Structure formats: structure tokens, C-alpha cells
């Protein structure tokens, strides 16, 4: 809502600049989006008097005009507007002027004819297209005949006013009007406001004999009409047009303009019907019947149903109540009798109707938020009065009323101690009473208890907390002290799960992976990939796009999307991890369960290639090293094993392992299947995905001290040739089982399956370390143990010791 600074000043004796007023409003009532002075940025734009118009010799639409701009000699200006005519007062942008969008106007030639400036349309000096009167929409604007050539145009057009654009929150419907804003400003500045008192001259016959209105109080708690005859449609006077276009409304004619003006002033939407188009003398407020149709003012056609409130005559709907009037009964050329409607419609119906018919109008916005239910008749009277003054209308005697349920004002009890206890202030009873009184409340005190009667127009105030807000904001939030909560002490501590999640992130970052946060909503295809367990998908009912329509059931695909994004931007080395939730759903249950997962994905090289570090493309074992180190950091209690899995559809069948802790599968790792990688448009990528919740829930080892032996260790190396099918795990398990009491560790130090070994075989070499913690080991004992192991390797695994 754009509110005029000048209009405010007509009612309130304010001595502040527009920018300061806007700041005050923002600090005390509602947000201000902008303060605009329409003439800002414009230069040398004056009134011109067209002395003559001649056709351009080389053009069929240009005219050569001599224009008096208040100087000794007229200017010659070439103008292409179809509506240019001799004797018009027009808007002239002089040579050297600036018009809208910072465009500079210079002397020029148009088809060989010199032109000193430009005759302007309103749009060219910054008026939005939708406020320009229709008559001038496609041509230049014609100024009032009494405008003086050479004067700047701004004051004639209301462009030196400042317009404060309020962003009114849903609770403050009262601020969608001049009067509502004035009430608030009166409290903010502690200044009196003098409101107008409408005086209707009822010169016509009794309305009751000409019109009857019927309404259901549930649909329209208030419904009333006045009737004005013999109106003379005409353009509104300049001052009224200025009020309207500065507020963002297009001036149409005096009758329609009056209804818009009253809405801006009082916040009460009105509708003007052409009474002579009514079928019969009765007007009904009712729900629509199935099959009924209505063409609204904007020429939109609407199918109605029983959720819609309509205004109807004897035959059919004539308006969508509170939203928009019908085209058939609209004010149009030839209208002489006007029925003015002022009403309060039930807000919920209006909100839904506006949504259903996609008609969010200024009227519907105000009815949704609630209008001043104590001011309906006043607004109606003010409109009738203006129709006499501006359209020579003959107001018929009386108002027809269908319903008149003005609500009782809210009465709220509040105590001074409560006010100060909640706000943390030490306000006196006088201060509080004064604030509430300036807001228009009646305050009765009984000891420290205040009984506050709230004006009906403030339909947002019902409970003591609402009054606290009023007191706090008018008192000023800057004056509120700043303290910290006191009272009983509490401990602030992360839970074990939260600590583990933080440790997880730190561990993986330490291992070289960057934290990613990807979208949890993805495509149905991606949601279903890399599944750790069977699950139904969870879909959005109304997604914005198929890219983000289904909740993920894996974290990896998000990371693959990230890698694709990097790859498309020529970033080839990417190492990412993500900690987040996956959403598993059981059939027949609407709500999925949310599980914490952790996943990683690496493509290219983990370490950046450098002058002293040759490129080492990421491989299975590098990622396995990361997973091993991470699980070691988490100290899961139990053997971690890696078991080849050839059956995960999105993974490389020969390069994928399930990750088991104590035999329990907690995740998998390996290379993404090349076909899937291709689908994502990425290169070879290695990934892991772990059920973080499972890791959180597992028992953990505590750190403990183990004595470091003083006695020397002895090592023996063994190299062997085995069949390809024999795994490292089998060999290590056998060595550990048969290694004897002093075997401390087995370490693989070489794997070879190149040309020097027979086909179907591979060569493995291990270092075995022996140590006695309590004595020096005898070489013989080691040799004995070692030979035993060698024999076992030969016997059990068919190894050929080399």
C-alpha cells in the first residue's frame, strides 16, 4: 500500500521529513518497502502550449509543432503522438532534460526537421503503465487548460509528493488505509488527528421504495446500500486523479474513482453498481448455485459453486462478493443511477474465493484481513457525499440495510506487574495508560489492574499479549533494556549422538573430503538408486519440478550430482562427503522414517597433482583407506570386514564391497558402475555410503593405555605364490590363527600379478612381526613358529613359498 505523505499532512501536523516518517513507521508499525518521490531524477520538464500543428512533409504520422514553453520564442518539436492537437497544454521535455529511466533529451532532427525537445506521455516521465488514464494510454498526456506554459509539471501532476510503500503484515489490516495509518501515527507522535465528518445531502426519494437488500449474516455480517440518481459520469478532478495514481490506481471516471478513493481513505472496499441494470429491485447476498456463471469487470469468466458468496439480483449473480463486481452491472457510459454497496464479508470465504478464481484484488485483500466494522456506514456516507459533489448525484433518502452485526469491542484485563514482568521494563501506570489511550483504547484502572476497551477497527487485539505488543512498540523497542535470562541453571551439552556426528565430520575432513550439502528432494530415479534396504518412495503431492519431487533414500546420488556440476565446469578432482538424512517409507504408512547417513564420493585425484606429486587417480584402496580410518576414529567395537558384493546394480560388480561390523552390514563402498557414471556424465568415481545411525548405536571402544614392550621385536618376511581366488583376508586369517603366541602383526608389503608369475596365480609378500612383551625372544622360537606358518600356507592354501 502506497500512502501519500502530503495526504497524511492534511490531517496530522507533522514536522518530519518523508524519509524520517518512513523510518518511524518501520520502527513502530509495519515494514516500509520504499519511499518514492515521483519527480526524483527528472529535470527540465515543463508545461507547453501547442500553438500550431503541421504534418511532417516526409512522414505520415509525425507532426511539427510550435510549442510555447514560457520563453520568448516557441520551440519547434516534432511529435508522433496520434492525439496531439493545437491549443493543448502538454508535457514538454526541454533540450537538456532528463525523463524516466535517466534518459537525456537533446536537440535532434527527425526526418530532416529540427526538433528541440519532446512532448511526453505520462509513461515517459515515469508513470507506471497501469495508472495512466485509458484516454492517454497510447498518446501524449493533455494537461489541465489552466496550466501555465514554462512551469515545471511536477506539482500539476502530484509528482512532488512522497509515497511511502507499506508492507502490511497480515495482522494489521487496519494499516491498509489512510485513516488506519493516521490512527497509528497519532499514537506514535502523540499528536491529535482531525478526521472528516461526512455530511450527506439526501435530496432524493426514500430508498426503501426502490431497493431491498437481503443477506445471510454468516456470509455478510454487515450489508448495506445507498442509491444515487442522476449522476453525471466524467473524469475526476485533478486532485482526485493524483491521489489515485500516486496510490497505484488508474483514474477511470468520477463514480468508480470515488469508490477507490474511499477504500484508500477508510480501508472500506465499496462497489458501485449500475442500478438500472438490476433485474428487479432486490439484491441478495447468497452462495452461488452450481452451474451459475459470472463475467467479472476484468472480463474474466468464472464458474461458480456453493463455496462462493455472490451478490445477485432476482435472476443471476451480479458480483463475486468482496472480490470483484460483474461486468453486466458495471458503471459504464450511460450509467445514471448508482447503487453503492458497503459491506463486511466473512473473511475465510473471501480468501478462498480469491484463491480459487485467482483474483487477488485490493478489496479481497482488505476483507481477508478484516475491515473497520465500526466504520461501514461512515465510508458509505462519505462516498455518497462525494457523488453529490463530484458527479452532481441525487442521493436517495436513507440506507437499506440487510445485516448490521457490528462486533462488540474487545475488553481486556491486564495488570501493571504483568506488563513489566513480560517486557522487562519499569513502566508507570500513567505511561501505559497514555500509550493505550493514544491508540484509541479506553482504559479504566482499578489499583494496578487496567481494563482496556479496544476500538473495533483494531481487530488484531484480543488478549493481553496483543496489548503488550502495542505498549512495547509505541514505547519503543530501542528503550527496552537488554538482559539475559536468569533463573534456574541448565547444562548445555551435546548428546553422544550429536558428538559423534561432529566427530564424523571432523574425521572425514581430516581425511581430505569436503563437506557437501545437497538437495534432499530429487528425481524418482535417483531417489531409488544405491538402496541400502528396500523402501517405498515418498513423493511430494505438488512438486515444483520433477528434479525435486521425491525424497532421497541414499546420499550418494546427491554427491554424484555435485560431481557432475563440478565436472561440467572443468573441475575434475572432487572429493566430497555429506552427512544427512535418508527417508525410508513402509508401504501403507504416509510418513517416512528419517535416518542419519554418511556418504563420500571421490573422482579424479584425492590429492592435487603437484610438481613433486604425480597424479594418482583415486582407486578402491584409497577410498577403503578413508573408510577404515574413519571407522577407527569412531572406535566401533567389533571386527570391520569388507566382503565383495557383485550384485549392487549401481556399482561395479568386481570393485564393490559391503562393509560389515561384527557381521552386521552398515554400508558399502566401491566404484560406481560405469553405466551409471555415464548417466550422471561423470568420470570414474568411487563412493561409500554408511548408515550413520547404526554407527551411533553401536558399542564403542574406550581409549586405553597398553605398555610399550622394552624387548626387541623380530621380523620375518614371507613371499608366496597363490591362486588368484585366494584372498588376502584368507591368508592373513590363517597366519594370525597359526602364527603362535608371539606373533604381533602381519603386514602385506607386496602384491604382484604381472608377467613374472604364472597365469591364474599371484604373488603376495608379508612381514610377520614377533615380540614377547615380557622377555627377549629367542631366534629359534621365532624360526620354529615361522616355519609352522609356512607349512600351513602350503598345506591349507596351496601356497608356493618363494
Amino acid at each position, binding site marked *: 500500500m502506497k500512502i501519500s505523505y502530503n495526504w497524511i499532512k492534511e490531517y496530522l501536523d507533522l514536522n518530519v521529513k518523508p524519509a524520517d516518517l518512513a523510518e518511524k513507521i518501520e*520502527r*513502530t508499525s*509495519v*515494514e516500509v518497502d*520504499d519511499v518514492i518521490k515521483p519527480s526524483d531524477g527528472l529535470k527540465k520538464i515543463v508545461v507547453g502550449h501547442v500553438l500550431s500543428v503541421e504534418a511532417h512533409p516526409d512522414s505520415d504520422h509525425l507532426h511539427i509543432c510550435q510549442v510555447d514553453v514560457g520563453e520568448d520564442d516557441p520551440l519547434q518539436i516534432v511529435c508522433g503522438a496520434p492525439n496531439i492537437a493545437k491549443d493543448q497544454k502538454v508535457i514538454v521535455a526541454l533540450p537538456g532534460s532528463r525523463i524516466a529511466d535517466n534518459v537525456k533529451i537533446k536537440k535532434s532532427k527527425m526526418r530532416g526537421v529540427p526538433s528541440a525537445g519532446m512532448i511526453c506521455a505520462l509513461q515517459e516521465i515515469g508513470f507506471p503503465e497501469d495508472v495512466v488514464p485509458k484516454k492517454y494510454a497510447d498518446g501524449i498526456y493533455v494537461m489541465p487548460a489552466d496550466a501555465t506554459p514554462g512551469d515545471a509539471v511536477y506539482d500539476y501532476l502530484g509528482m512532488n509528493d512522497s509515497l511511502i510503500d507499506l508492507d502490511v*503484515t*497480515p495482522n494489521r489490516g487496519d494499516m491498509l488505509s489512510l485513516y488506519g495509518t493516521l490512527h497509528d501515527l497519532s499514537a506514535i507522535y502523540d499528536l491529535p488527528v482531525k478526521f472528516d465528518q461526512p455530511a450527506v445531502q439526501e435530496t432524493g426519494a426514500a430508498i426503501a421504495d426502490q431497493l431491498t437488500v437481503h443477506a445471510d449474516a454468516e456470509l455478510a455480517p454487515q450489508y448495506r446500500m445507498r442509491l444515487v440518481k442522476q449522476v453525471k459520469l466524467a473524469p475526476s478532478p485533478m486532485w482526485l486523479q493524483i491521489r489515485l495514481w500516486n496510490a497505484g490506481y488508474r483514474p477511470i471516471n468520477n463514480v468508480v474513482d470515488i469508490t477507490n478513493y474511499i477504500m484508500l481513505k477508510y480501508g472500506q472496499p465499496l462497489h458501485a453498481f449500475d442500478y438500472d441494470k438490476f433485474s428487479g429491485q432486490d439484491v441478495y447476498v447468497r452462495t452461488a448455485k452450481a452451474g451459475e456463471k459470472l463475467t467479472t469487470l476484468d472480463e474474466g469468466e468464472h464458474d461458480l459453486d456453493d463455496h462462493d458468496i455472490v451478490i445477485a439480483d432476482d435472476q443471476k449473480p451480479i458480483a463475486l462478493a468482496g472480490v470483484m463486481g460483474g461486468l453486466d452491472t458495471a458503471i459504464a457510459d450511460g450509467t445514471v443511477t448508482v447503487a453503492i454497496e458497503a459491506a463486511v464479508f466473512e473473511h475465510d470465504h473471501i*480468501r478462498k474465493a480469491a484463491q480459487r478464481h485467482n483474483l487477488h484484488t485490493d478489496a479481497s485483500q482488505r476483507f481477508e484481513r478484516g475491515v473497520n466494522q465500526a466504520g461501514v456506514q461512515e465510508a458509505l456516507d462519505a462516498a455518497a457525499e462525494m457523488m453529490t459533489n463530484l458527479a452532481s448525484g441525487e442521493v436517495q433518502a436513507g440506507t437499506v440495510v440487510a445485516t448490521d452485526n457490528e462486533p462488540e469491542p474487545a475488553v481486556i484485563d491486564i495488570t501493571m506487574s504483568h506488563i513489566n514482568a513480560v517486557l522487562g*521494563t519499569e513502566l508507570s501506570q500513567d505511561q501505559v495508560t497514555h500509550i493505550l489511550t493514544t491508540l484509541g483504547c479506553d482504559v479504566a484502572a482499578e489499583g494496578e489492574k487496567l481494563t482496556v476497551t479496544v476500538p473495533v477497527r483494531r481487530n488484531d487485539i484480543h488478549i493481553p499479549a*496483543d496489548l*503488550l*505488543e502495542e505498549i512495547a*512498540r509505541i514505547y519503543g*523497542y*530501542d528503550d*527496552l*533494556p*537488554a538482559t*539475559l*535470562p*536468569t*533463573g534456574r*541453571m*541448565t*547444562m*548445555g*551439552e*551435546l548428546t553422544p549422538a*550429536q558428538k559423534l556426528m561432529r566427530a564424523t*565430520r571432523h574425521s572425514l*575432513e*581430516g581425511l*581430505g573430503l*569436503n*563437506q*557437501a*550439502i*545437497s*538437495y*534432499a*528432494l530429487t528425481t524418482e530415479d535417483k531417489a531409488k538408486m544405491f538402496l541400502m534396504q528396500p523402501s517405498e518412495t515418498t*513423493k*511430494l*503431492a*505438488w512438486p*515444483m519440478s520433477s528434479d*525435486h519431487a521425491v*525424497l532421497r533414500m541414499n546420499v550418494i546420488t546427491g*554427491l554424484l550430482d555435485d560431481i557432475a556440476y*563440478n565436472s561440467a565446469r572443468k*573441475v575434475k578432482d*572432487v*572429493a*566430497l562427503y555429506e552427512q544427512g538424512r535418508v527417508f525410508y517409507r513402509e508401504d501403507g504408512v*504416509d*510418513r*517416512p522414517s*528419517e535416518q542419519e547417513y554418511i556418504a563420500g564420493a571421490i573422482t579424479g585425484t584425492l*590429492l592435487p597433482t603437484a610438481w613433486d*606429486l604425480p597424479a594418482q587417480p583415486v582407486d578402491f584402496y584409497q577410498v577403503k583407506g578413508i573408510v577404515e580410518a574413519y571407522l577407527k576414529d569412531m572406535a566401533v567395537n567389533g571386527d570391520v570386514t569388507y566382503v565383495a558384493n557383485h550384485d549392487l546394480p549401481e556399482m561395479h560388480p568386481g570393485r564393490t564391497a559391503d562393509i560389515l561390523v561384527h557381521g552386521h552390514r552398515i554400508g558399502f563402498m566401491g566404484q560406481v558402475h560405469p553405466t551409471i557414471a555415464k548417466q550422471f556424465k561423470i568420470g570414474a568415481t568411487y563412493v561409500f555410503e554408511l548408515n550413520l545411525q547404526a554407527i551411533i548405536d553401536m558399542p564403542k571402544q574406550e581409549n586405553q593405555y597398553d605398555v610399550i614392550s622394552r624387548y626387541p621385536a623380530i621380523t620375518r618376511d614371507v613371499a608366496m605364490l597363490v591362486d588368484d581366488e585366494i584372498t588376502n583376508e584368507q591368508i592373513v586369517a590363517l597366519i594370525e590363527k597359526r602364527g603362535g603366541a608371539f606373533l604381533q602383526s602381519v603386514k602385506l608389503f607386496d602384491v604382484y600379478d604381472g608377467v613374472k608369475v604364472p597365469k591364474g596365480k599371484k604373488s603376495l609378500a608379508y612381514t610377520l612381526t614377533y615380540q614377547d612383551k615380557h622377555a627377549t625372544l629367542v631366534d629359534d622360537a621365532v624360526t620354529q613358529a615361522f616355519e609352522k606358518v609356512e607349512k600351513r600356507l602350503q598345506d591349507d592354501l596351496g601356497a608356493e613359498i618363494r
Partner: protein
Amino acid sequence: MSLKDKLTELHDRGLAEIKKSADLKDVNQVRVSLLGKKGPITEVLRGMRDLDAEERPKVGAFANEIRDDLTAALAKRREELENAVLNAKLANEAIDVTLPGTPVAKGEPHVIQQIIDQIEDLFLGMGYQVLSGPEVEEDKYNFEMMNLPKNHPARDMQDTFYITKEILMRTQTSPMQARTLETHDFTKGPLKMISPGVVYRRDTDDPTHSHQFHQVEGLVIDKHITMADLKGTLQVLAHELFGDKFDVRLRPSYFPFTEPSVEADITCFNCGGKGCKVCKNTGWIEVLGAGMVHPNVLKMAGVDPDVYGGFAFGVGPDRFAMLKYGVDDIRNFYLNDVRFLKQFTKKG
């Protein structure tokens, strides 16, 4: 020539030879030739037996002196030469210290995570718990118990991803207010919590909108919590995140679940409060919404609003990060361009 003179001559000649020696091999030869068993000093000493008993010890002492002196000179020369060899070797080993260091594997936390951790740590220090709630919520908690009944006009303010009529992607972290209020045992102490997490809105992604972003909810409920406590708490938060120079101001606003409701602005980073394009010439930037918990919210969660009350606030880490670092496109946070992720490496 007396023995003494001979010795003196030997001494001088010896010192000269030592000085002349060019490498360790030379030094060794000089040592053997001077002090060896067949060397001149031994020979001279052998001639001592011809001396009288009276002279013998004097000459003997002198000879020892000379031998010690030559030995010391040899040692010194050896050390000099050894140092020279070492220095030459080290000089040979010189490297270009300006070549870059070998890369190490190092990952970075996401900038949003860094801000969330910072907020968590601040409030943990003030005795708050950190709680996390479901991202797929019930309409009941996301809206109804937050004082937004089914037909509330403010529901239009947030477009919601519904899954079914009653199940939705949470549009805010506020449902955690209702969830914790329902379960908190006030006999055990006040409720002080923050709840960070992901929220979702039915928006088209563009530089300033994202269908997924983050929020941190804060809630304090006890018997004597004031709006001044809210103001003080938000000040601490702003100082922690942005620095002590930043002021906080409150403005009236509207949220269905708080009354009074406020919006908090902080001093503009870009201009320090003078007014610029970023802050639309106000000198202030809106950073969060807050207020005193609405009595209806307490009542619906089974907490007596006549006894208990307090404040709630909701902050947006995405917005903070955008403001703090001048990030001009919110989508950067969710596309994970490594060149973006690697920009926020400062620790502590």
C-alpha cells in the same frame, strides 16, 4: 744445535706444514710424519739419553709441550677442514625454499555448517540444549500447534510441499517448539533449546530463493523470562556471529506463534550503518524473526501460559552466510562447486 733448538725448529716447521695441509689426507700425513714412531720428535727424544740427568726432565717437558701443541694444531686443522667439507656439501644441498609445499589431503566443513556450529557452541555455553526434529512433519506441529489453524491467512505466506493432506516437508524449524513444549518436564528446570535443521519451501530456485535452506530455532521458557532477555540474547548472538561492533535493533513484525513479534536488524556490514545499496540506505539489515511465545502455543502444548512464558527466535544460516561473505547466489550452498566450498577455510 741443541736439542731444544732442534725441537723449536721442528715445532715451527710442523706448524707451517699443518697450515699448508689442504685436506684430511694431508693432515694425516703431516701427523704421521711429525708425531709418528719414526718421526723427528721421537728421534729427538731418543737423543735425550745423551743429556745429563739435570737437563733431561726440562727438555722432556719442553718436548711434550711441543708435541701437545702440534697435536692440538693438527686437531684444529682437521676440524677446519672437516667443516669446510661439510659446508661445501651443505652448500651443494641448497634448495629453492620458495617452491610450493607438497599438498596434503584436507577437507573443509561447509560454510553453513560452520555457522550452525558457531551458533550451537554459543548457546551450549549459555546452557541451551541442541535438539533436532523431523524434516517430514505433521501439519499439526508445523502449523496448527504454531497457532496457524487450517484457514489462517498467514499460511499463504509460506508455500508448502505437502506429501499428503496431513504430512508435509517442514517449512520452518518452529514445530520443534511445539514438540519440546509437549515433552519438557518443567519441574526439572527451564526449557532452553536451539534446534538447527533443514527446511523446505515451495519456491523456484533462483539467486535469492531456494526450495531447501536452513534454520535455527531458539526457545526459552521459564517463569520469569522477559522481552528484554530476548533483546539481550539476540545481541549476544549478533556479536558472536558478526562482531562486537554490530548493533541490534528490533522492529514490530507478525508471526502467528509469537506475540509481541519482532524482526531484528543488525548494522549493515557493507557500510557500517551509513547507508548503502545493500541495506537500501537504511544502515540496517534484517537478519531474524523473534518474539514472546504466543499463549495459544503454550496452551496447545499443555503448558500453562499464566505460569510459564518466554521467547523464541528463528535465524537463517543461509542468509547469515550470504550477508557475512557477500554470497550473491543462495544456490551456491547446494550445488557444491569445490571452488566455492574451498573458500571458507579459516578455523577458530
